[in-house]
């Protein structure tokens, strides 16, 4: 007997009632998700704009938010951000098509991430208003480490990709093939491991800056 057979056998031996069909199990699993509004927090403001709800949640976690009309306004905003934080005019940029045609002005951009990369720019797949989370999927044009190595993580989030709740993102995920990594980013990296006191920038970014744009044109 393999370990697998033994474990599955022990599970079956402990069962008091006969095994059910896969369809019956799936139906029960689906019913366990009925009426999701009864077991999740409401949005604040309740019936308002998703961007408002997102910004409130994310802001409360220490994420800074900036509203821009379109993606063309990003380079100027980045120069201001780098200046404000006393960072060199240099930036690691995600190799996303959306960023390809931008005029970076005086900011030197690069693809390769240094182990102690000061600042990086990425694009969120979508955002979740309930929790103020950004969603990033790994892929050929989306390195995972771009969200973790830099000290300053700057993320562009299109307002039209905002979803109200975690379930809405799960439904989106269910319709497509899973990436290697699907990552929900909810505020800058932090730790409470020393006496429970909260400190930012434990291993991941100590600063999370979200640029909300109305479109990527």
């Amino acid at each position, binding site marked *: 007997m393999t370990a697998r057979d033994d*474990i599955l056998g022990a599970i*079956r031996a402990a069962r008091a009632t006969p095994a059910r069909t896969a369809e019956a199990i799936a139906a029960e699993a689906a019913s366990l998700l009925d009426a999701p509004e009864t077991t999740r927090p409401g949005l604040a403001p309740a019936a308002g704009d998703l961007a408002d709800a997102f910004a409130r949640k994310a802001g409360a976690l220490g994420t800074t938010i900036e509203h821009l009309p379109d993606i063309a306004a990003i380079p100027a905003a980045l120069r201001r951000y780098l200046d404000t934080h006393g960072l060199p005019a240099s930036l690691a940029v995600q190799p996303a098509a959306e960023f390809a045609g931008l005029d970076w002005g005086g900011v030197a951009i690069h693809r390769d991430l240094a182990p102690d990369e000061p600042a990086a720019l990425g694009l969120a797949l979508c955002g979740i208003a309930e929790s103020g989370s950004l969603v990033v999927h790994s892929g050929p044009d989306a390195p995972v480490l771009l969200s973790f190595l830099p000290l300053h993580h700057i993320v562009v989030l299109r307002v039209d990709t905002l979803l109200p709740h975690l379930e809405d993102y799960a439904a989106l995920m269910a319709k497509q093939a899973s990436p290697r990594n699907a990552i929900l980013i*909810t505020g800058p*990296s932090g730790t409470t491991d*020393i006496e429970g006191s909260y400190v930012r*920038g434990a291993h*991941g970014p100590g600063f999370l800056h979200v640029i909300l744009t109305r479109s990527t044109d």
Partner: protein
Amino acid sequence: MSHPIPQPSFKARAEAALADRTLKLAIDRTTGTAEAKRAAAVAAFPEFDAARRRGRAIKDHVIAHLDHYLEQFERNATAAGAKVHWARTDAEARAIVTRICLDADAKLVTRAKSMLGEEIGLPHALADAGIERVETDLAEHIIQLAGEAPSHIIWPAMHRTREQVAELFRAGHQPPPAAEDPATMVQSARRALRAKFLGADIGISGANFLVADTGATCTVTNEGNAELTTTPPRIHIVTAGIEKIVPSTAHAFALLRLLVRSATGGELTQYTTFHCGPKRPGDADGPEEMHIVLVDNGRTRMLGDEFREMLRCIRCGACMNHCVVYRQIGGHAYGGTYPGPMGSVLTPVLDGLAGSRDLPNACTLNGRCEEVCPVGIPLPTLLRAWRSRSWREGLEPGTLRAGLGVWAMLARRPALYRLASRIGVRALRLFGRGGWIARLPLAGGWTRYRDMPRPPGRTFMDQYRRTRAQKGGRR
């Protein structure tokens, strides 16, 4: 057993912990904050009770169909390119992980905190195989420098004050941190671990959830150390208990809302990441191999006995933060991988009741753990079940059995029992000063740490009879 109950006895460890004032200070600082933050998070989530019922129903559903979901998970994880391994015991799990490391000729392994990894004794196994292991969670890094085991499942270094952490970092970091405040020390750890993340051959993580319908594993961290552990190395190994299965991503989210609020008082951890198979063709980064080790280690045994409900546990740590005993003695005194109320239920499963029968007894049954448990595990009931089993198996000492025999003899003879009680309360009054008894022969274990209230001159039954007679007179 990977974690034989260390000598000396539980009582000796608890006494040593009680005598350690620094330990008490450290525990109070973190558990106090945790309790307040959890209360605020629950107050801000009026749907918490309904969410808790849903969470419990999801876990019960999975436990009832564990074989179905494990097979589905295996199919989907395999289809995504991961290799799934099965381990009946902690020893099998250690052997599987060590074999993967040795076959890959790994010199340096980074690890993101996983209590299952501690349960199966992975840190020692890697050391025995001559592999350098670097713990990347800040608290695990602290206790690795101290050469200790975790004392809490969420804050493994809870027993260490900031001053003690500073001492460890001054000795362990090059250059040493310039100051003792937590912010400076966190920066120091960030610098010290950066090169390790990028230089590791293998990254090992646990899993908070195994998602059956995608084959993904899910990690949650606040630091971002899990992704830095699982992305750069060539191989990612996941070790997870078989009870971590959920049907789908949506079910995982329903449980995450409970887990994070109960653990840290947040709504979601900063990083919630699903890992589905190795790097895809063309991916910018990620491991070339992903191995998932599904570990039983006593869990299928729990399915068939009175501890089945314990399989609902999502490892939030709320029960220990709210436990009056844990908050006095800390996690190390328990002697097992898992401390506090949930640990006192699990340790006898993992390490045997004979060596751990004191743990279910080290409980006041005040019920706070069950009140705060996000999946409604009746912890006091399960602890009482261990007490009964310990009695049935004859593990309780002779003095206790004899004492209970005398009490049972009296309890079956009401007149004699009342007489004995009357003598007892009058005798106890002789030791009291003011309203309290500070010293009591044969009960030094009690009065050394707290005073006992001086009883009134009459037994409850005498007072009851008198009150009833007075009321009856008035009527």
